[in-house]
């Protein structure tokens, strides 16, 4: 990868990058397909029902494929009074960053698409763009419910980005680098979750809020705003919003694994198992936790959400910086 980046550009290189990008896209879409199925299955298990069980055998293995196919052949409606260009652009703007952030995630020792020095910063900065897409979608639909949903989304995602960013400062202190690869290597002996538990706690909660998942699913609160910002979307444009959500789930779970759970590092005495697999296991635990939360908790109210972000999470995140610095100074 290094040589390729610094070599003279040529058609071969373009082709290689294109192929790699396509491979990642296919992997991610495959994940999304089965993440949706897993979510429905796990929720079904928690709620004592079977979940999908018709298309693709007893476990509904092709259910999501069938759903996506249905969405593809569905009529694409654009409301008459919608702001047409914005309406069309919004799902793309929401989705593209979700996919872009994946480039920096190190999935194993040598499986990373871009080894950026400012990897973490890049992730945070790019993921912020999605908010604009969601707000755009909410505004352009010219629907009052989607406007409310879009506003909620903007307020929520901006508020929770702050504790999210501040909570990882502890990790940066320990690793001494913003590079995600260096951060993983820094955890060879001990995962950062044990060094900055407060940071992990704040990060986990903020990341669920960033993902707009229960109990922070206010932007699309079904029982209040019907579907929130994507209420007017149908067919594949709607699917793009859904895709954004699940790709972010993928990205956020990967980031949690990298920052706090030691990425591809094995736990002692089990290092014969390849790093990729370790990453997968840790990553799945995070995803399962998020689904579990969804099956258990009710939804917060908008004002409670805000006061929780600013009055609880932000002070905790700030405190975490001092605690982490003290820990680093005294024990490491």
């Amino acid at each position, binding site marked *: 990868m290094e040589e390729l980046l610094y070599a003279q550009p040529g058609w071969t290189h373009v082709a290689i990058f294109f192929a790699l990008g396509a491979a990642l896209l296919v992997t991610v879409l495959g994940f999304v397909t089965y993440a949706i199925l897993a979510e429905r299955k796990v*929720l079904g298990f928690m*709620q004592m029902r079977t979940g999908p069980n018709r298309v693709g055998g007893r476990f509904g293995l092709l259910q999501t494929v069938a759903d996506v196919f249905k969405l593809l052949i569905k009529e694409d409606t654009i409301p008459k009074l919608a702001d047409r260009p914005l309406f069309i652009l919004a799902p793309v703007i929401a989705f593209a960053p979700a996919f872009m952030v994946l480039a920096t995630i190190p999935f194993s020792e040598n499986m990373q698409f871009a080894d950026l020095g400012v990897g973490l910063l890049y992730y945070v900065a790019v993921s912020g763009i999605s908010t604009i897409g969601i707000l755009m979608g909410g505004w352009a639909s010219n629907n009052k419910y989607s406007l409310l949903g879009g506003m909620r989304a903007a307020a929520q995602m901006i508020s929770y980005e702050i504790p999210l960013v501040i909570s990882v400062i502890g990790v940066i202190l320990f690793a001494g680098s913003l590079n995600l690869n260096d951060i993983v290597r820094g955890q060879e002996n001990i995962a950062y979750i044990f060094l900055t538990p407060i940071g992990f706690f704040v990060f986990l909660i903020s990341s669920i809020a960033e993902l707009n998942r229960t109990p922070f699913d*206010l932007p699309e609160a079904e*029982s*209040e705003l019907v579907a929130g910002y994507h209420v007017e979307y149908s067919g594949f444009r709607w699917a793009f919003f859904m895709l954004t959500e699940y790709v972010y789930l993928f990205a956020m779970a990967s980031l949690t694994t990298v920052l706090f759970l030691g990425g591809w590092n094995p736990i002692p005495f089990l290092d014969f198992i390849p790093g990729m697999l370790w990453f997968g296991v840790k990553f799945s635990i995070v995803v399962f936790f998020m689904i579990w939360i969804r099956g258990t908790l*009710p939804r*917060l109210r908008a004002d409670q959400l805000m006061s929780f972000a600013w009055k609880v999470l932000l002070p905790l995140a700030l405190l975490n910086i001092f605690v982490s610095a003290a820990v680093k100074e005294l024990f490491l």
Partner: protein
Amino acid sequence: MIRTEEMLLNVGPQHPSTHGVFRIVLKIDGETIIEATPVIGYLHRGTEKLAENLQYTQIIPYTDRMDYLAAMTNNYVICHAVETMMSLEIPERAEYLRVIVMELGRIASHLVWFGTYLLDIGAMSPFLYAFREREAIINMLNEICGARLTFNYMRVGGVKWDAPEGWIEKVRDFVPYMREELAGYHDLVTGNEIFLNRVKGIGYYTKEEALNFSLSGANLRCTGTNWDLRKDEPYSIYDRFDFHVPVFHTGDAWARYQCRMQEIEESLKIVEQAVEQFPEEGPVMAKVPRIIKPPKGEAFVRIESPRGEIGCYIASEGKKEPYRLKFRRPSFYNLQILPKLLVGENISNLITILGGIDIVLGEVDG
């Protein structure tokens, strides 16, 4: 200087949380409600007018469609009114069967409320748990009368069918099972910090306001008013059972939640005792003339339905059909306080408040 503009938001009649075809036109500033105007009548079927051309037995299935979540109490109120006019003596066994099915219906109704309320607040799982237990009740009721919701089970003078063999034992087994599941609900929901934050202090009204708006049921008992017709004006055989009326004093959605959850427990107590005292044999139908003609006059009876006081007024001219029939439908009265409660709240609270009142649109629109 920020300039804000009011916006008109139409909630319903097709909205996930209006529990049927109910519409509220909101004037909102941001998410804060300035004014709320409920629009009802989408499910109006004119039950009272239709009844004027129907014989008394023919009216009973119409009452099933009013409060379709607890149709047994509706069945009972019309039969009770006619029986009061005709001064009929109801056989013991029929009375016990009536009480058992009514209390089972109350539990089922509160379970639906519990599930949908939590769904409104954003928790998905309790809904499915509550519906699983409700399914058990519905199956038992189905077994005794052949219908899952629109029972048409009671008749003037008794009940239509006797309990099938083994039915009473099934009900007996259900009581401990339900208690166990109820404890599970409390573990999952009642202590949840998010849930408490969502319901505590929301939709508050005082005792006086509740009485002025003629609220009844849990909506009244949450304000500290001890009023339950099963205790205060015992009808049927309710004076034979030992149960207490849960009363709470905070007058908010949290009190209403606790009130309903405890009512499930009390209903279980009643069912348990009724099954214990259930007479071995006997008729389930009194001697009633084939064509029911109550004497000339008027009667008004009221009983405690899961949603509050359901009343039935009959004016008879001694004919096969009533001259005038009127139902006091508790959901309709309970809903009246909604616009008052909504002013100044935000949209999330709208859902909490509306859900907390526990309306059934079939009953609101009659």
